[in-house]
């Protein structure tokens, strides 16, 4: 969620950097690993994305219109038959100043029965209705989360409509995931740089090497000085390029969605979700008082037919035993950390409502800082020297 800063907008005059001060990274935006930044020690999946989890698909509807519409919706579909075959799901709230619909039901039933949708604060109702219209079981609730994009977007206009949600649902796909200023992340701000959508994944080690864990975030949180990348205090070293006009606070929110095909039960997924919070904290977040920091975790390793869930006598689920769950904790923390850094690396400068402007993380300066702290791959250091 957010402080209500709309009043502040009217009080503070806009002032912008000139375009000549915006220095693009050679070759455009790059993901953290392409820059030589390596988060953690586990290996990513093929796409280093939540879509590395078999069956998981992601769709975005991005709305960039005129000077004031900077928003959208992102959907994460656990598998093709989610409306009729549920998956175990858990969650964790680091700070609850926000909204994710369906959590009370999730608390009781422990299942996810719809795609997870990420959007802006004012559009939760519209997205909720759009998903509900496609759900065959009206007893179950859509899961729609929000973060506040009003610095760049006319959020009061509620521009996300049913057709945008359906477009994201119908267009959801596996493979590489667009990051940065897309979908629900279009107008989001992270550590006072341009934020938005980011994703990453981890392959689990033996004996669970057949399983993958993936994360997608809608990053809209953090105070600049707190930003750390792989332990390096990058935020302390890049103190300019803050949003214009200056804001009283950017202690905003983040939505984190964790998916795995490792078979887990709902209460185990609560534990996985908590480790997502550990990954968030490694980027510098303190889960501030005004934020809505929500972590949803689901497993596609068990699919529960609606008829079995509601009406049968009993059904069977597979589960990784608690003593073997440790690699999933590490994967959840690492992938969340890297997904947030990817959101920062892939987001581009954006100008929005009332001429407000947010700058992207300067990749050239970031790489040099990381190099100085000896946190780059050797192969990447040669490229840095040529900058």
């Amino acid at each position: 969620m957010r402080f209500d800063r709309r009043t502040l907008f009217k009080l503070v005059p806009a002032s912008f950097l000139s375009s000549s001060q915006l220095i693009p990274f050679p070759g455009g935006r790059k993901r953290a690993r392409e820059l030589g930044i390596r988060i953690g020690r586990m290996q990513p999946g093929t796409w280093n994305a939540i879509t590395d989890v078999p069956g998981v698909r992601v769709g975005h509807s991005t709305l960039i219109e005129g000077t004031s519409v900077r928003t959208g919706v992102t959907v994460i579909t656990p598998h093709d038959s989610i409306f009729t075959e549920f998956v175990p799901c858990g969650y964790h709230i680091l700070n609850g100043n926000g909204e994710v619909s369906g959590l009370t039901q999730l608390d009781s039933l422990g299942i996810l029965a719809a795609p997870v949708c990420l959007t802006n604060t004012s559009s939760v109702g519209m997205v909720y209705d759009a998903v509900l219209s496609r759900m065959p079981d009206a007893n179950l609730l859509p899961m729609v989360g929000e973060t506040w994009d009003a610095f760049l977007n006319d959020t009061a206009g509620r521009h996300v409509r049913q057709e945008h949600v359906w477009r994201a649902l119908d267009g959801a796909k596996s493979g590489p995931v667009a990051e940065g200023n897309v979908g629900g992340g279009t107008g989001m701000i992270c550590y006072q740089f341009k934020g938005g959508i980011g994703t990453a994944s981890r392959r689990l080690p033996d004996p669970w090497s057949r399983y993958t864990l993936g994360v997608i975030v809608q990053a809209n949180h953090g105070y600049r000085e707190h930003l750390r990348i792989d332990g390096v205090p990058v935020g302390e070293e890049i103190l300019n390029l803050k949003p214009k006009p200056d804001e009283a606070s950017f202690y905003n929110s983040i939505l984190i969605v964790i998916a795995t095909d490792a078979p887990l039960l709902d209460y185990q997924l609560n534990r996985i979700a908590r480790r997502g919070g550990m990954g968030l904290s490694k980027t510098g977040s303190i889960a501030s008082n005004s934020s809505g920091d929500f972590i949803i975790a689901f497993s596609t390793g068990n699919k529960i037919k609606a008829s079995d869930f509601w009406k049968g006598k009993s059904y069977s689920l597979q589960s990784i035993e608690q003593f073997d769950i440790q690699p999933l904790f590490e994967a959840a923390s690492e992938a969340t950390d890297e997904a947030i850094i990817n959101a920062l690396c892939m987001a581009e400068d954006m100008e929005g409502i009332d001429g407000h402007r947010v700058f992207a993380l300067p990749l050239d300066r970031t790489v040099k800082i990381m190099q100085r702290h000896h946190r780059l791959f050797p192969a990447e250091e040669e490229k840095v020297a040529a900058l």
Partner: protein
Amino acid sequence: MISDPPFQVILIERWNAPAHRYFLSYSVIGDFRHVLGLPVIDEFATFSSPIFLGPKSLLGQLYNVGITLGHQRNLEMPLDQGWPPLCIGTNTDQKPSPGWEVRLLDAIKSQEYDRSTHAVNPAIQVHRMDEITFYATDLPLLPRQLRRLARQGRTPFTLAFSTGNRIAGTDGKTLSVKVASEAAFEQLLHRFSTDAPVR
């Protein structure tokens, strides 16, 4: 149930049964009861210890009895062999007679595990005492269902466990867990709220 007033011990299985755990959850409503062992339940949603009840003024000593039992079962006292002792404080002022720690240990250990006679009590029971309700069932319920069941308790502290899944280490393989459907669970909720035996 072992009773040595003012102590009681609820044994789910013989004290030295092979390593295993059962799902368990609880509900607290405005209760400031002394309970030891809850953080592990919050994290893992399982238990392997007997459930100890005794005066809150003696809860530390009662916990010590549970720790002793756990160590005797396995020096490392892993999660599925008696860690942590689940000890619930009661409000009685009754004083125990001397030597109660040894008596309690002996009473528990006298029920040696015998594989040929091994059986989990299949009864569905409600047990209420000292503003505590215990729900026990062999219907295979997950922790979230047990939490919902515990919330049905009409006492400030309610504990619910299921013997429907006996969870043991799987050595790198996945574990199969049975889960009651919502319809079966609803039937159980109805039964507990109406005609279940109260002892």
